[in-house]
């Protein structure tokens, strides 16, 4: 048997519907990874966008239940999934929402800050290159 004194996220207040939604978004993430690895970018982005929406719903549900650590996990995952889907704006907005929470652990706060900074940097690179991209496409 597993160690009964192990410390993990408590599942006691989560119902079967929550579990089913969690499985669904996990499958989208796994399918997204597979498509990404096969360089099927559009299909991968669609899976990550579906996963992101589901992660947001799961996060909001956990917030309603007062499960703040679990809510943070889902919201950070939502931000990461949006970034993977190519939606930097939504990803950064979710990170900023999370960073406004007073109950984040310091290591998680640091990880989210680092990630949001990386996304901002990547977005700046993208925007800087956009005029050349448009010019080369004849737009």
């Amino acid at each position: 048997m597993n160690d009964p004194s192990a410390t993990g996220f408590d599942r006691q207040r989560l119902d079967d519907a929550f579990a089913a939604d969690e499985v669904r978004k996990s499958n989208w993430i796994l399918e997204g990874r597979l498509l990404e690895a096969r360089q099927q970018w559009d299909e991968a982005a669609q899976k990550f966008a579906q996963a992101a929406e589901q992660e947001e719903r799961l996060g909001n549900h956990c917030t309603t239940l007062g499960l703040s650590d679990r809510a943070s996990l889902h919201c950070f995952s939502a931000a990461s999934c949006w970034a993977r889907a190519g939606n930097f704006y939504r990803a950064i907005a979710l990170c900023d929402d999370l960073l406004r929470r007073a109950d984040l652990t310091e290591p998680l706060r640091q990880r989210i800050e680092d990630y949001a900074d990386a996304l901002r940097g990547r977005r700046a690179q993208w925007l800087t290159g956009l005029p050349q991209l448009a010019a080369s496409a004849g737009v």
Partner: protein
Amino acid sequence: MENALDEYQLEAICREHPIAVAMFVPFAIARLHRESSPTEARVRVRMRNIGGQPEEERALRLFWSVESMAKQPLAVQEHVVTEWAALAMACVVLAKYTPLRLRAVALQGDRFDYWVTDGRGDYGLEISGTLEEDIEGRHRDKVRQLLANPYRNDGYAVTVRFAVPEVLFSFHRFEEQAR
């Protein structure tokens, strides 16, 4: 210590775990398959702090159907094949030796996090695969990564080496990182 041979059918992970791990079966076969034994492999499984045992070693005969082998090229990079083969192997040892099941996958920044459950709680799971690299060193890195989890949860690490198939599977308490 020599143990009796355990047996497990690779495809059984699809029934045991709630998430869609079937897609990873061909990757495990690709890494375990040998011309001399095309539908089975012997795997050394070393477990630490699993099931209340400080240290345990098992010999596992893992077998699969020819129908589960990839019909077409897997069309991903070699390191991805190894990574997903390791995920399938983690699903095998979880199902064979524990009541834990792979419950969820999350993206945390640029990292993928796996979560296992015993029905009462969720615990982190770090998975790593290598062809020939030193399994102990790789496992130590994964444990360090696991214990840096920002949620302060206990968790598990699974490292798989495929050259001579071997799995290292261990449980860790978050407070270990303070030592």
